[in-house]
C-alpha cells in the first residue's frame, strides 16, 4: 500500500489531525498529552507508594489518580498508531542511543520536559493545538516560553555538535 511506502507530507498529516482535533474539541476537549502523562505518573506512583501517596498533597489537590481519565488514552493511542504504522511500513526496529552523552542529554531533557509541563499546566501540544487556537492568553505566554527555551536548547545543542 502506497501509504506505507512513501513519507506523507506533514502539511497533509497535520491538516487531517487539525480537523480531527476540532471534533475532539466539540466532544471532550482539544488534543493534549501532558495531562494524560501526569495521570499515568500518578497511577504509577500510586502503584509503587500505595497509601503513602496521600502524603504528597499534589496527588489529591491537583491530580487525583484516576485510570478513567480520557487524556491517558490519547497517548496510548498514539503509541499504538505509531507501532502499527511502523510495522506496516517495515520501519519498526529497536534502536538505542549510541553514546553516553546522548543518554545524559535525553535524561536531562526528559526531566526538564516533565517538570516544565507540570509547572505550566500545559505541554507543547496544548500550547499549539489547544490553547493558542482557542486564543487563550496562556497560549501566547506558553509560546513565548517555548520559543525562548527552544532557542537556548538549540544553542546548547549547537555547542555540543561543534564539540
Amino acid at each position: 500500500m502506497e501509504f506505507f511506502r512513501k513519507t506523507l507530507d506533514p502539511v497533509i498529516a497535520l491538516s487531517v489531525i487539525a480537523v480531527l482535533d476540532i471534533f475532539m474539541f466539540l466532544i471532550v476537549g482539544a488534543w493534549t498529552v501532558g495531562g494524560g502523562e501526569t495521570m499515568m505518573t500518578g497511577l504509577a506512583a500510586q502503584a509503587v507508594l500505595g497509601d503513602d501517596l496521600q502524603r504528597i498533597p499534589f496527588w489529591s489537590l491537583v491530580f487525583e489518580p484516576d485510570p478513567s481519565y480520557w487524556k491517558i488514552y490519547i497517548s496510548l493511542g498514539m503509541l499504538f498508531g505509531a507501532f502499527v504504522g511502523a510495522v506496516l511500513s517495515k520501519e519498526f526496529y529497536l534502536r538505542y542511543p549510541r553514546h553516553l552523552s546522548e543518554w545524559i542529554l535525553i535524561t536531562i531533557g526528559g526531566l526538564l520536559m516533565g517538570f516544565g509541563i507540570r509547572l505550566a499546566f500545559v505541554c507543547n501540544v496544548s500550547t499549539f493545538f489547544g490553547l493558542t487556537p482557542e486564543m487563550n492568553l496562556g497560549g501566547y505566554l506558553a509560546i513565548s516560553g517555548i520559543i525562548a527555551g527552544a532557542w537556548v536548547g538549540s544553542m546548547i545543542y549547537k555547542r555540543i555538535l561543534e564539540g
Partner: protein
Amino acid sequence: MSVIGECLVAFIFGSVVGLLVQRSRFCNTAALRDAILFKTYRNTKALLVAMMILTIGFTTFITLGDGNPMHFDVGLNQVVGLFLFGIGMVLAGACTVSTWVKTGEGNIGALWALVFTFIGMFLFSLLWSYNYWPPAPASMTGEPNLEALQLGYSNAATLQEKYGIPAIVFGIGQTLVLLAIYRAILRKERKTGTA
C-alpha cells in the same frame, strides 16, 4: 458522553494521530529547532497550517457557544514552564508527541525520555506540595491574582463576552497573522532556493 465513550474516542483519535505522525515524520521539536538552527521549515509550515485550521475551527464553534475550551488561570508559570520544556525537548530530541511515536517505532532513547518525563513530573509534584505554586485549579478565580503571579482566564469566548464581537472575528485576525508568518517562510525559502 460516558467515561468509556470518552476514553474510546480519545484512543481512536490518538491512534490516527500516531499513525499520521509516524508516516509524515512530523516533529514539534524540529518545527522550532530546525527553524532556529538550520533555517529549514518543513515541520514549521505544517504546524502553522494546523494552527490556522484550528483557530478558524475553534473560534467558529466558540462563537456558537459550542466546544470544550481549556479552563484554568494562567500566568508566569506558563512562560517559565514552557521555557524549561523548550530546552528539554531540544536536548532530548523529542517532544510529548514524538516520544510516544518514536517509542512505538522501537526507539529506546524516546522511551527513556518518556520515563524521565514522568520522573520530572513526580519531582514537580514534590515541589508543589511544599510551595503550593502555581495555585491549584480549585482555588482559581478567573481573575488576576498578581500576588500569585496569575493573570486570570481569558480566551476567544471571554473576548466575545466582553466586547460583544463574535469570537470568529478575533479568530480571523489570528489566522491572518499566522498566514503572514507562513508566507514570510515561503518567501525566505524561495529566496534561498530551499522550497
